[in-house]
């Protein structure tokens, strides 16, 4: 970002914040085993917040050469806005330590490397069963450099590179199509060998069977844990939702809101994890924030505005793009593991759920859900009996998390929400399962 932009904003507003971003990206789509589309390009932009008479205006542009127009727009917006007594300041400068996730091998990973990865991945898939295909898949890599400058003295720059790969593996088996979705994963850690593991997983969902309606134990795979917690729990610990009375956790700090087996932390500083960053999008240092300790609510997640409103320090959870104002989201969302090494042995009669159809349709504030099981298995006496079809589960999320039987020792990284969910399997004593007609 040119110094003249900063100078200009300074000359026009006493209180301001500039968020600047430059990014390079490429995207590859796989169709029927092979990449058949590659795109790449660059983007940049700036978003400016200014305060005029205690009123805030926000404007953004990607025509950086017209930065003056953008700043004037923000000022004119501020003039018609309303005074906000809760707005006190932008983030204050802090001592920044570099924690970013720049990985040299990943930074140089290009289209040709991906085409090679895909070939090796495909041959691993085929080694399990020749009939399996990669129906579709996609790979995205983005390198982004951001800079935040504000009138409190913050001037912070950070570069990150991230990538993700997901695909759908399918097979035509006895005239029927079966498929599994391989959720997004971080290709810097993966090896084409994951093709074998996922092809075996696909072979395990052939011959799906119906299940009778009943109430049984529910074992959620980390992917399903992530998608349910990302919808409802993340909404509830968002300080803005609590302040606005939209969170069921509002006013419950220090109270038990979950089962005592649950310990949940938001961690922005853990080394090498997906959402680890030196500071958030406003320039507040990342930190480790306990959310739930032995079932008791310890903290909400804050950005600068909501923290000022509650008279405390921001937890460094502001996320944004150039074209949007900061909003609160989780960094690395960690549910502490339990002590069960083979948690499935604790299931007498139950349902193991890995992938849910319609998780985004659950009512985030209330936690009411009624979802279809896209990948699930019937378990009896600790053993997988068969993969299920046409099964729904329904319940209330905030009741569910009060009654937990056990957590697994192993933790998996899942790409829900902001991308950094590190959670175990969770076993619940009961869930309403709606299956075939009796």
């Amino acid at each position, binding site marked *: 970002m040119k110094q003249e932009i900063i100078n200009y904003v300074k000359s026009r507003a006493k209180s301001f914040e500039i968020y600047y971003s430059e990014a390079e990206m490429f*995207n590859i*789509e796989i*169709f*029927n085993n*092979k*990449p*058949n*589309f*590659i*795109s*790449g*390009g660059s983007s*940049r932009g700036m978003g400016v917040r200014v305060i005029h008479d205690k009123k805030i205006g*926000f*404007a*953004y*542009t*990607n*025509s950086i050469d017209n930065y003056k127009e953008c700043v004037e*727009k923000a000022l004119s*917006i501020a003039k*018609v*806005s*309303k005074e*906000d007594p809760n707005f006190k300041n932008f983030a204050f400068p802090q001592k920044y330590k570099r924690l970013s996730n720049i990985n040299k091998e990943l930074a140089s990973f290009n*289209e*040709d490397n991906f085409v090679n990865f895909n070939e090796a991945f495909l041959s691993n898939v085929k080694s399990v069963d020749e009939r399996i*295909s990669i*129906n*579709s898949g996609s790979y995205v890599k983005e390198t982004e450099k951001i800079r935040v400058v504000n009138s409190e003295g913050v001037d912070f720059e950070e570069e990150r590179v991230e990538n993700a790969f997901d695909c759908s593996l*399918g*097979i*035509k088996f006895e005239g029927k*199509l*079966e*498929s599994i979705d391989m959720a997004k994963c971080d290709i810097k850690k993966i090896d084409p060998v994951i093709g074998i593991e996922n092809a075996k997983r696909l072979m395990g969902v052939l011959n*799906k069977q119906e299940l009778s309606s009943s109430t049984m134990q529910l074992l959620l795979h980390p992917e399903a844990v992530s998608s349910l917690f990302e919808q409802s729990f993340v909404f509830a610990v968002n300080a803005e939702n609590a302040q*606005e*009375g*939209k969170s069921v956790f509002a006013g419950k700090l220090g109270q038990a809101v979950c089962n005592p087996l649950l310990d949940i932390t938001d961690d922005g500083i853990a080394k090498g994890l997906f959402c680890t960053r030196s500071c958030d999008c406003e320039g507040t240092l990342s930190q480790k924030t306990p959310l739930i300790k032995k079932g008791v609510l310890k903290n909400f997640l804050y950005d600068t505005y909501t923290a000022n409103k509650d008279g405390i320090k921001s937890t460094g959870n502001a996320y944004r793009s150039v*074209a949007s*104002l900061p909003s609160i989201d989780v960094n690395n969302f960690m549910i502490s593991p339990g002590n069960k090494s083979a948690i499935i042995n604790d299931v007498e009669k139950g349902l193991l759920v890995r992938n849910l*159809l*319609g998780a*985004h*349709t659950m009512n985030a*504030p*209330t936690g*009411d*859900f*009624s979802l*279809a099981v*896209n990948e699930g298995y019937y378990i009896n006496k600790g053993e997988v009996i068969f993969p299920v079809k046409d099964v*729904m*589960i*329904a319940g*209330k999320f905030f009741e569910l998390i009060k009654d937990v039987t056990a957590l697994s020792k192993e933790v998996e990284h899942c790409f829900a929400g902001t991308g950094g969910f590190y959670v175990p399997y969770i076993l619940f004593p009961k869930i*309403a399962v*709606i299956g075939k*007609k009796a």
Partner: protein
Amino acid sequence: MKKFVKLAESQGAEYAEIISASSERSNIELLNKEIKELSSGNQKGYAVRVLYHGGWGTAYSYKDDFKSLIVSAIKKANAMGPQIEIGNYPAFRKKLRTPCKQRPEKISLEEKKENLLKLDNRQGFKSVSSLKLLYSEGISVYSFVNSEGSDLEWEDYNTAFMAWAFAKQNGKLENFFKIERIKGGYEVMKKAKAAVAEAMQKAEAMLNAKPAKGGFFPTIVDQKLGGVFAHEAVGHACEADLVLNNSSILAGKIGEKVGSDIVSITDDGNLREWGWTPFDSEGAKASKTTLIKDGILKSFLHNRETAKILNAKLTGNGRSQSLSQKVIPRMTNTYIEPGKSSFNKMIAEIKEGYYLKGSAGGQVNPASGEFLFNAQEGYEIKNGQIAGMVKGVSLVGSILQTLHQIKMVAKDLELGGGYCGKSNQLVPVSDGSPHLLVHNAKIGGSQ
């Protein structure tokens, strides 16, 4: 821009598109009469898409340096082996502007803000604890030229209004949202007052709603939810890329009976609804495509690539969310054609069942055919009468079965706008339907 098409061809591109897009957006968000956001911004982008040696390559930037974008797009396409061919189609030259009754840029931000503030009137709604009101507008200009000689320009206007109410009573918390979206201008606000009242009234009513019983029931779905049914249960499985990559249960079933005689489903990008796509992202003209006629599967939805492989007519369904993404077959405005029945006749048929209204979204696994959609509100039906409200209700079905379970179709077709997600891309679509009676619908409830 046309000369760059020639330049791409001279460098070996079998087919090229040169595109520029710019947009201006403004948002106003109020929470309990406080301003949460007042913002405005603009973005411009330029892209080159080529088919080169049988692969699609796209390069894009914030700079209109088409020469280097062509080089980069060709290089990307060349990194893959030859796979794709496309057909030849007629050229279109057209300038379009979305008709607006009230051009949004002619009304000041201040006036829009004041109008929004006035809408927060809680009189008569004692339990409403929080009300969020949101207005947004977008004006975008899209220019497209391609190897066929098409030259298109579209100045598009879209506006949206949302009311999201929370109600609290005796420690219980409920919420309800109502969204209105149009291809058009500030006239969207004509529906705002009713939308706010509905959001507050329903949020309060939900405080007394009970969980639904899970099981199998005769169920009436309203126009919104019926529309989601058309979209999830039929539309996705008709997208030709899914048909071609072993991901659709409807593959190979054209000409077969897949639903009851009274079910006909259409996708039509010409309708000026939220999914209006007069020309798709590849410059193909919108068409009215019959997916199902009287229960028989008739055709799929195509982009250039899939139409060539299946030797089918181009339907104008090639869409991408942004300049950087792949153009894939997507729905536009998808709806169940009106029938002969009525809501009153349907409800009279039901002894014990449900009436489900509004959509909180849906999802399908088009390969297995299983789909789910979630109702915003639900009511028990007892002996032909609407009884108590229920909440958290979804309906699950399987494509080939549920289409046969539609027993009655009313005359009262309505469409509504939303966004559809596929392959990490969101595009605006409309879904619609008349009221439908589904026999033996599978309902998920926690009671």
